[in-house]
């Protein structure tokens, strides 16, 4: 290949955001290469045959927030994205009863009314309110977040746009939004509902991926964050990707390739090359150098700034801010290969309740106690779990008659008292299985294989600092113009030509792809700008090019 080793842009990390950034840049005609450390693309959105015949979405396991514009722009359905509906949520209860919500509103109302007729009505109105709140916040997801302290034309225009949007919401909804931004999810839900499992199951979305409990202030917003995906009603992009979440990455990778991007695996980057305050390329672990005027890191901020760069290349204040970002991974994952389906005491047999999500969240107290364990450095003895059985949705995930079960577990703190060991990992796995077996007693005997992943495993396998699945907690002080940190929320970094695009950037994680897209937009906008000012058509000269 002529000009081997020189590109218009290098993307570090082949997770879904890195792939999205690469796809958008390649689509704009740029010569792009993606460098992935592992042998598979996808980052945390990977499907792997962990045990022969059993395919797992090893880490992230559902799709709800993937931006519709990305699905459209990259023509992902053409590249193999097929989202299967995940339409119900079952919350089994210790007393043998359960709470479920279904795709059909009448059915959901009937079911909730069994527990609380008032909640059945409130559920609908709460849904409307969340719809409005999500719409209020949604414009933020598709734009570089404006900094309210900045007087730059772009930030001012952004603030005006947001202000106009807030005004159009009307005072009641602005008040509701303010509450949502400041309250705990438990307090917020208390204003609406009386049924404990309903409150707890909703509150659970507010604690995912953070070391916060349902009673921690600020958790209400995270709840809204998880509602975002549900507002693009026509897309119904809430579900399970056929083939597992690796097929989401696979579809994006296929799109990127179709636009001409080069995707390399087993190509770990040691360092970003900086000359005179601007990025000029990267050095791989094997010593190879690749050159490009644009380098985009899809890694989290800690790695993007403190590992790929030399700290002395950065202003002290930036180093300080990066070091302050809270990671504190708090989630684990247990993947099971099963010889038969779990038989729940509350709903025996293999009914439709197994085709949706299963949430172990019987009460807000239960979740808060699970958090109490983690607060003091232990894993939850009785954890919150979000369970799906992908083989019921996509039979290809397991051999006929066998099943795979994905158990997302909260809390498993990265900073475990005494540190994570193999024994403690298995003890954590046992706590998960023991707890779930109380609801589905046949589980233990049905387990053929089990894979237990702690935040430490997540960090070691994927490189996510402290195993945080969002590349930094989704807490209000780390969102919008403060994500990943103040003054640098716009995908640029203090190093010219060096960009960031992972879920550690605005608007955050959840297999959204928004960071990758917006970063690519920023790169292209900057190049247009520099073209205009330089009056030249080419990208800046590539130092070191022969």
């Amino acid at each position, binding site marked *: 290949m002529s000009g081997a080793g020189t590109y218009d842009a290098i993307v570090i990390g082949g997770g879904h955001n890195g792939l999205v950034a690469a796809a958008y840049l390649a689509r704009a005609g740029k010569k792009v290469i993606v460098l992935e450390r592992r042998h598979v693309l996808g980052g945390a959105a990977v499907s792997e045959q962990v045990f022969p015949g059993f395919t797992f979405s090893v880490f992230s396991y559902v799709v709800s927030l993937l931006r519709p514009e990305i699905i459209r722009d990259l023509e992902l359905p053409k590249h193999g994205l097929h989202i299967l509906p995940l339409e119900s949520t079952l919350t089994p209860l210790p007393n*043998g009863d359960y709470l479920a919500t*279904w795709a059909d509103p*009448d*059915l959901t*109302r*009937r079911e909730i009314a069994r527990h609380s*007729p*008032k909640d*059945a*009505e*409130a559920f*609908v*109105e709460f849904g*409307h309110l969340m*719809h*409005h709140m999500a719409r209020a916040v949604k414009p933020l997801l598709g734009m570089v977040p404006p900094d309210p302290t900045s007087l730059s034309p772009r930030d001012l225009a952004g603030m005006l746009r947001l202000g106009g949007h807030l005004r159009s919401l*009307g005072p009641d909804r602005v008040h509701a939004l303010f509450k949502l931004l400041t309250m705990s999810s438990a307090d917020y839900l208390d204003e609406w509902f009386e049924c404990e499992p309903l409150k707890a199951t909703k509150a659970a979305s507010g604690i995912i991926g953070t070391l916060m409990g349902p009673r921690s202030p600020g958790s209400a917003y995270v709840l809204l964050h998880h509602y975002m995906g549900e507002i693009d009603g026509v897309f119904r992009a809430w579900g399970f990707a056929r083939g597992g979440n690796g097929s989401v990455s696979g579809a994006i990778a296929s799109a990127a390739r179709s636009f001409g991007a080069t995707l390399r695996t087993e190509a770990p980057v040691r360092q970003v090359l900086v000359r005179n305050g601007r990025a000029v390329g990267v050095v791989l672990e094997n010593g190879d150098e690749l050159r490009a005027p644009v380098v985009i890191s899809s890694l989290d901020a800690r790695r993007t700034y403190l590992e790929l760069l030399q700290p002395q290349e950065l202003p002290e204040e930036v180093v300080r801010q990066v070091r302050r970002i809270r990671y504190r991974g708090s989630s684990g994952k247990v993947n099971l290969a099963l010889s038969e389906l779990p*038989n729940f*005491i*509350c*709903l*025996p*047999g293999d*009914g*439709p309740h197994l085709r949706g999500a299963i949430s172990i969240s019987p009460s807000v107290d239960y979740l808060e106690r699970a958090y109490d364990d983690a607060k003091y450095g232990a894993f939850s003895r009785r954890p919150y779990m979000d369970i799906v059985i992908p083989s019921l949705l996509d039979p290809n995930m397991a051999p006929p008659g066998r099943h795979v079960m994905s158990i997302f577990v909260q809390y498993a703190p990265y900073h475990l008292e005494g540190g994570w060991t193999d024994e403690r990992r298995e003890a954590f796995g046992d706590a998960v299985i023991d707890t779930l077996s109380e609801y589905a*007693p046949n589980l233990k005997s049905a387990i053929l294989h089990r894979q237990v992943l702690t935040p430490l495993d997540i960090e070691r396998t994927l490189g996510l600092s402290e195993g945080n699945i969002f590349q930094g907690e989704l807490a209000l002080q780390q969102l919008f113009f403060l994500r990943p940190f103040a003054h640098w929320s716009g995908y640029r970094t203090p190093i010219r030509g060096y960009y960031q695009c992972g879920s550690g950037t605005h608007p955050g994680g959840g297999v959204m792809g928004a960071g990758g897209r917006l970063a690519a937009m920023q790169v292209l906008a900057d190049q247009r700008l520099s073209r205009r000012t330089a009056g030249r058509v080419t990208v800046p000269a590539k130092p070191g090019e022969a």
Partner: protein
Amino acid sequence: MMSMLAMRPAVSHALLTTPFHTRTAPLVLGQTWRRWAGHAVASCYDWTHDREYAAIRNAAALIDISPLYKYRIEGPDAVHLLERTVTRRVAPAAIGQVLYTPWCDGRGKVIDDGTLIRLGETVFRLTSAEPNLRWLDMNAFGLDVRITDVSAALGALALQGPLSRAVLNEAAEQPVDGLRYFRMMDNRIAGMDVQISRTGYTGDLGYEIWIPAEGCVAVWDALMAAGAGYGLTPAGMLALDVARIEAGLLMLDVDYHSARHALIESQKSSPFELSLDWTVSFEKEAFNGRKALLAERERGPAWRFVGIEVDQESLEALYEEADLPPALPVVPWRGSVPIFRNGRQIGYATSGCWSPLLKKHLALAHLQAPHFVPETPVEIELTVEHRRRRAAAYVRRLPFFDPPRKRA
């Protein structure tokens, strides 16, 4: 453990059925079911609804209206709760009197509408199209009142049509001749205690019979037997829809949206905008939405709910251009159809039908001021052989059909 598993009943995901299901199901020849408040109800029993509609206007029809939400409201503060909730005056209502009334949110936008029966000094029953337990409960804060959802406990039948009185006199222990319009009486049918109100959704002479769920089948059988000589015909939702459009009666989620579920302000309607002025009583000192409604009354409503009569010659001309005979909406339609005046859209129709009785194509519509004045010439959009056309039409006062027998 296994015995515990065995004890739990399997949970059905089937639509709910009404207490009359064992009687109605075999009659639904075309399996033309539809959903109403989570229940399966018949669109029509026969393959077409024409005969069922004819029974409403010429003989007597029996309509299962059990899916209505029904709330029993009782206690010393029942009147207080209702006065603050609904727009009509409740205190002066006599025991046994029935009030039709909407109720509003704090900004005077309609949440739902239904009938309110005064069963006793401090006992009422409210019907609604959507669940309202939470709304009533929130309004009852601090009041000494008990609200019970009796929707499933009470079946209900509408017996409507010019011969409905004769059928009831045969079936009921007490004659209903003395029962006045919008009054209710206790009575017995087939040995069951029932309540009979002279109300309905057809704009005709008719009654609604409120029956404990366990007595529903017996009452159905008794009514069908008594009605055999009077042409009593079970009728489904399509026939009812034609009748209620002729009667100019609006329907939630078809003709308007509840203020609770509207996504934007323009999806909400005030009682004035629904032409329900007569249900709003400013004599009451306080009720939900009073201030906003008072202000709206001062400035005049921006919209009105009116009748539209399509000009048949204009419609025929449009079909003639396409070389087709005129097509009539023999099945009542629901949707949103633009209404124009002088080339500008001034509103939209939400339901319509061909009236076999009046021989007119009728619609119910929301029109903006000042175009809602009766007899105003307007145009209604219709699709003739794949092309959108506009037929001439006229604004009409509602109801289209109002026979003296309704109140006599």
